[in-house]
């Protein structure tokens, strides 16, 4: 009985730890996703290096000397953020709430 009791306590402790870990992981996940999103925004909205195209839009104009500065992008272009099913679901959830 005591042994079982001890085991139970231990299990409880482990469970608590696991739950904490999970919470931490979720936070980290959010952080990473935020990083991705921000970096993606920065990347897609154009900087000096995106003069000749991006990995999303392609480098069609690379060999040409003219550079077009259309840094417009749509949400569909966020291939990095959208590669996460969870993120997509979350966004859909937000839209539904709206």
């Amino acid at each position: 009985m005591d042994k079982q009791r001890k085991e139970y306590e231990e299990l409880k402790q482990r469970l608590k730890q696991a739950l904490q870990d999970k919470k931490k992981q979720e936070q980290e996940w959010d952080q990473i996703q935020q990083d991705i999103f921000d970096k993606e925004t920065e990347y897609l909205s154009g900087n000096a290096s995106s003069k000749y195209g991006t990995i999303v839009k392609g480098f069609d104009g690379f060999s040409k000397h003219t550079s077009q500065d259309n840094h417009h992008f749509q949400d569909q272009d966020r291939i990095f953020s959208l590669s996460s099913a969870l993120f997509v679901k979350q966004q859909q959830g937000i839209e539904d709430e709206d």
Partner: protein
Amino acid sequence: MPIPSAQVDQGVSSNGSNSAASASLTRFRHRKISVKQKLRIYKACDLKDLDHDELQQRELLEIETGVEKNEEREEHLHKILQNSQLKTKDLYIPTPDASRVWKEFDRFYYGKFQEPKNYIQFSAQLEDCCGPCYNLDERDEAFLNNVLNFENEGDRLSEYEFEMLMTNFESAIKERQPFLTMDPESILPYEDLKPTMLKNDIGDVGIKTELAAELQMEAGQPFLTKFDSRTGSNSRYMGILIEKYGLPVYEYWRQRKIEVVGGSVIPSLRAERGKDKDDNDPYFCFRRREVRQTRKTRRVDSQNSQKLRLLYQQLQYTKELALLVAKREKMSMDTLLKDKEIFQLRCHTKSLKRELGIKGEDEDLISQKRRKLVSNVITNKKYLVAQTEATSLKKLKTKGKDRKLAVKQPSGSDLKRQQLHFQKSDQQRQMQQQHLLQQQQVNGSQSQQDSSVVSHVYVKLPSSKIPDIVLEDVEKLLSMKERNTKRFVEDKMRRRREEDGNLFFNLTDDPYNPVFEVHIPPNIKPTNAPFSSIVSSKFEINRSYYTPNLQDYIAGASNFVSAYNKDGEVIENIKYKRLEFYNPFEDKRESHTRELPLRFRRRIGRCGIEYLDRKDINRNPNDMIEQFMDFSIINEQEENSDVINVYDSKLDELSRLHERWKYDSDYNSYGIKFSNEPSRLNQISNETQVIRFGTMLGTKSYEQLRDATLKYRQNIMAQRKKLINAQRQLQQQPQQPQSPQQQQQPQQQ
């Protein structure tokens, strides 16, 4: 193939040097014959000495082979070309037989290809798919099976791993000893090569390990990326392989390396190396083409390098993002694993809890809430909103600045005051602005007035502008002139009549003009004076007559006529004391005045007969005819139809008279009344008149300028006067108090 020696050198240069050797190498070429070039002359006896090939080559020129010039010398082709007619069928260029079917194909190429529904997407390079560069040959297989794996049976080195090792050796030696071919014996020992080999990244292992480290995966944990082929998936890591089999494989590899004199053990196609070019070796696989280098400018160079740098940055960005995504996915996986762990823990705990009969304490056992589908990520919309807010803020700021500037601009002197006002309440500011506007308007109107005055001072009349002005008709101007003169004369006459009262009157055509005795100077004739005006201007007046009491004179009561000479002195001579009544058809014709009652025109008719046409002044010939002719007599004569003399016939006379007076018109050939002639400016051509008119315009513009200047001066004068007045009043102010109206006056001004 014997190279024909050139015996015909058409292209001998002028200095006479014989370029037979070089000519033989280049293809025989026809050249234009020129006097500067020497030509060898062959006689009939020389012909048999000529090289047969040479002659044949000359004939052969006509065939277009379609291959490059150098390749025409290829042995088989050359043979064919020499027997130019292709008469023998057994001449051909040998090619390897590719028509047979390879029976063992199915043994090596198996597997089934399933066509995907979408396009085939493939990013991996060929090198990524075929494994290591090195390919096992029979010798290697023998070594692997009979030597290496024979000794340590339990721990076999697979063929794939062997290939990997060999590739690694090759790349390591290429890096460490690139010029091994110079001295194959100096090949580095195994210990020296080992670190390079460990560093080498054969099969992208290094990248994978790096990736694993970055994703915090356990070392040695095998994983495959999407681009990896599955062939070598179960091979061991390079480090392990080198440790275990490095030395024996090195010995084997070293042996082979020395055998190929330091070259690559991996068999390769023979290709041109470096600069040396051997056209005669038919076993070169790929030959370089002589391609002219395109001109490169520094600008293009720098542009291109800039582009490459940007591309590199792009890829860097992408790599970072991809790495982040990979991290996130790993995190997701970890979370899932954690979920599983938690689930299992809960299961255990629950069963234990039930056994122990513990109640409560189950807050950790249930997942209180399902993970909310709420993202903590600040997404696009919010981001955009934030951005727009920022920009609008900026805009607002700039707007504010603009407003300040706008207020600053209009006035220089009132700046401080206005700023103060600006800082006060809105109403005040608006009022101020309105006031400002009004001021501006007033200023504007003033300036406009000023400018109008100023602009009028200068009347520009560029030469091109003159024709654009609507010119007044010369005819009109002349008629106006005439009208003015007429009016002037009439005026004069009216006054004269008033002076005269009823005392004097004249009997001449124009009763208020004195009767003159007019002479034409002897050198002037009406024929050479083009206009009567000129004639009349030359008239000399010797005498004039005047009857003070005409009424009585006509009645016969008085006989008094006073005559004056050209100096205005009274002539006392009875001869002139008669007033004349002019009648051309009077029998006793005696004209006392020398006024020209008729004018004549000389005219040459048929047969050179000269006529003198008479013109009566101010008389209509048709009216006159009635006076002169008795129409009843004509009628009578015609009715009687007597045969009468032509000179007695009145009808004939009438026709003759009519004919004579036909030209007796008041209008000249231009259709202008003769009385108007003097105003025709003495036959001046139209062009001259235009010039005169231009100068008239000039004077007109000058007058305008003068007027404008006067106006301007007057304006300035008026302003100065006002100023002076104001000053005076100001000076007077302290001395004596004035009425408020007077005080306000200067301010208004």
